[in-house]
């Protein structure tokens, strides 16, 4: 079966792309899929730390592209899950070391061995973004309910359409239901209306996300009792084609209300 290639991108930095890529990789692998996550942020490698695999890297993406190793040698197996692999970025190079054709070729070589290839794009809309999006079957745009992140996401939506990789799907990350309730934050319905693309996930801001990053153990490993962890699993299931209702957040009640509003308004 052909692997499905998803690229996670955002325009603006710091919105949670890498966290999302790590957690989606874990959630998809926990569901029995063979998954590889590719860190495309050459020069600013971080996905390895998010996954707690930073001490296991021997070769990287650029080594594989430039023929210093075989592609298989650059892959790092996450021993906690039998089906999860990382292709790390090079840390001592920059984005000019990779071209869109290189990424397409790498993904072609991985075809047939995986169910899902997740590419964690660098921030920005330059070379790094271009090569990260080149092999994508589908693009996931991460944003925060915040003006700069939404504006940059809109730029990316336009670029994805121009590259004929659209329509992209949207993940709104770092939602603070308390602020939304007070009218101090854009609500999900506003963001979806402004960007006019389909919503595939809503992730609340939670302290546990930072704690899990500290420990190199993505929250998706133990989602019970944690809304963000469940949100990551729900996104993974939607990407697998399941129709999963958006979380009703009983504890807080508010996000649930927002979500019901989005669902009633937006289908």
């Amino acid at each position, binding site marked *: 079966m052909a692997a499905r290639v998803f690229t996670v991108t955002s325009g603006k930095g710091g919105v949670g792309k890498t966290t999302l890529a790590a957690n989606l990789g874990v959630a998809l692998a926990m569901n029995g899929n063979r998954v590889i996550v590719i860190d495309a942020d050459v020069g600013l490698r971080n996905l390895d730390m998010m996954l707690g695999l930073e001490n296991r890297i021997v070769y990287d993406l650029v080594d594989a592209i430039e023929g210093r190793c075989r592609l298989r040698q650059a892959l790092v197996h996450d021993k906690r899950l039998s089906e999860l692999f990382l292709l790390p970025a090079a840390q001592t190079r920059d984005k000019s070391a990779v071209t869109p054709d290189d990424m397409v070729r790498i993904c072609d070589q991985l075809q047939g061995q995986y169910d899902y290839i997740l590419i964690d794009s660098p921030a920005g809309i330059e070379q790094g973004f271009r090569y990260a999006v080149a092999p994508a079957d589908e693009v996931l745009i991460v944003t925060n309910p915040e003006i700069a992140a939404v*504006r940059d996401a809109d*730029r990316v939506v336009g670029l994805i*359409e121009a590259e004929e990789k659209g329509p992209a799907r949207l993940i709104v990350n770092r939602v603070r239901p308390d602020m939304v309730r*007070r009218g101090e934050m*854009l609500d999900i319905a506003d963001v979806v209306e*402004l960007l*006019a693309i389909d919503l595939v996930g809503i992730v609340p801001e939670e302290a546990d996300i930072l704690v899990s990053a500290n420990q190199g153990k993505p929250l998706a490993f133990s989602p019970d009792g944690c809304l963000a962890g469940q949100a990551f699993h729900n996104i993974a299931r939607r990407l697998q084609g399941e129709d999963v209702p958006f979380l009703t957040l009983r504890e807080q009640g508010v996000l649930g209300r927002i979500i019901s509003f989005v669902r009633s308004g937006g289908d």
Partner: protein
Amino acid sequence: MRILERLKRGRKPSSGKVAKERLRLVLAHDRAHISPGLLDTLKDEIISVISRHIDIDADNVQVTISQSARESRLVADIPLLHGQRRRKGA
């Protein structure tokens, strides 16, 4: 009209709504690659072309970018003076 709405509501709009309105405008300009300055130039030139043929209320002409989903259109709202046509050759 906006002031009336504001009075009716009796309080300032929330910062979330302010953010939404600001984004709505800026995204319209971003998507169309039309800066606010270019929009002003277009407006001035539209006024000068139309006024050569008909009397218009130049002070109340509005040229805006409207959005529906991801489609943008340039909308010119041009009030006519008395709806009268200027006679040619007069």
